[in-house]
């Protein structure tokens, strides 16, 4: 049975993260209280998706079966200019140290996920390859 997961990200163009209207901190991963001031006034806000690839891995053995069609699958750890570090699906031609733009896209199962795109425009083909397990209902 596929695992349940929930990125809790909204469906938007570009990148939208939780902004604290009390202290201004931008939070990720998604949470209920601001990680800096512990206030509960987090609001979704469009933010600059610019960032730098810190590290990359190519996964050969995902734990979920549904991912097995396009292996190895590359993901990155990205340090966003606005602060947080995020894991994201990585466009194939991007490497460690590269400047990328992080945005929210829908995978094949309709989940909102983070994708890291480099300069080159190979994104559309790659985005359609992002599969993930269905959300169990």
């Amino acid at each position, binding site marked *: 049975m596929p*695992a349940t997961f929930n990125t*809790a990200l909204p469906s938007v163009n570009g990148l939208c993260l939780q902004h604290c209207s009390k202290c201004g901190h931008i939070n990720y991963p998604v949470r209920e209280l601001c990680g800096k001031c512990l206030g509960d006034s987090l609001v979704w806000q469009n933010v600059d998706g610019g960032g730098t690839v810190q*590290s*990359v891995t190519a996964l*050969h053995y995902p*734990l979920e079966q549904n*991912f097995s069609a396009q292996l190895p699958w590359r993901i990155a750890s990205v340090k966003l200019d606005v602060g947080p570090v995020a894991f994201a699906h990585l466009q194939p031609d991007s490497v460690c140290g590269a400047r990328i733009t992080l945005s929210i896209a829908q995978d094949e199962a309709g989940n909102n996920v983070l994708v890291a795109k480099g300069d080159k425009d190979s994104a559309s083909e790659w985005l359609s390859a992002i599969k993930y397990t269905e959300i169990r209902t």
Partner: protein
Amino acid sequence: MSQPASYSGIALVTPVSLGYSKVSEHSAGWFIGSVLREMIDAAGIGKADVDGLAVSSFSLAPDSVSFLAQHYDMTLRWLEQLPFGGASGVLAMRRAARAVQCGDADIVACIGGDTSQAGSFRDLVANFSSFSNSASYPYGSGGPNAAFAMITQRYMDKTGATREDFGQLAVSQRYNAQHYSPALLGDKPLSMDDYLAAREIASPVHLYDCVMPCCGGEGFLLMSTQRAEDLGLDYVSILAADERHNAFPDDPVQLRGGWPLFSDQLYASAGIGVDSIDLLQTYDDYPVISMLQLEGLGFCKPGEAADFVRSNALTFDGGGLPHNTSGGQLSGGQAGAAAGYLGLVESIRQLTDSAVDNQVANARHAMVSGYGMINYDRGLCSAAAILKRGGS
């Protein structure tokens, strides 16, 4: 900042490791209770003499340590459950030591135990934490391999460490495991060529960088040195111990745990230097994490662990720095939360001369390190202890 008070007067006794296999029909409670039985027998005490119980387990739910008191028909006056993964053993020891020093308990059993079935590792990983469920697992469902592959890649880029350097750890631990019969992979020799030829799991992590999930139990009894001497038990003393959680949160990739925040004070409290450490047990969920412990605990400078493992023998009988002398998790298997007790239990064996074929000669001091709980992109718990052979 205040510093931990002395751990004087505390004895660690009766190291027990049991039940290692890939899968089991037994529950976690079987592993934990079996360790308890073996420890009581080894100490020559009755079950009623144990009045404190500290337990770590990923597979005990829906039961908890309080339910175990009824399972095992024990009336206890001190309980602790420690969900700290690979840091659990050192943390259990620290808390139990304070309980005994303060009179809250006389004899505490500290036990890590987990069962394992087909698919149980994936079930654990898929719902390990809210952060990992929302921000890690959806990106290819790599589990810990994904997070640690990215730490390993960044470490290699930053320091120039190579796969051969990680292989030094894996190969020497396999040698140690060949001299420790419970180690699950102890009957399979591993050469550097074997290590380098292994298949890639999550670049740059290959097969022999990964632990094999399994089941098993580890434990020790903690009591006063007076009680240990009255019982005629060989024991180990705690010279110093400390822990940090979520250290250096602004590092974009975890290239150091919490150890640099307390290792100088740890040696100062112990009254010995790093040169007096006769054996080291690191938490080796991946070789790169052992490298971070070598650096964070002062065995070498930050970023220089690759050079250290190239120039120091790491086998139990190599005359260098005996490291993960029972094979660690890489060659012994990762028995869930019991893996967080493995290095501590092995150190107690070594410092009481109760290791069998892998005994380190003339060992007086051991360093035990713990690391655990990947919430998302890094392990949050770091701990370490310096132990000393008991008696004069």
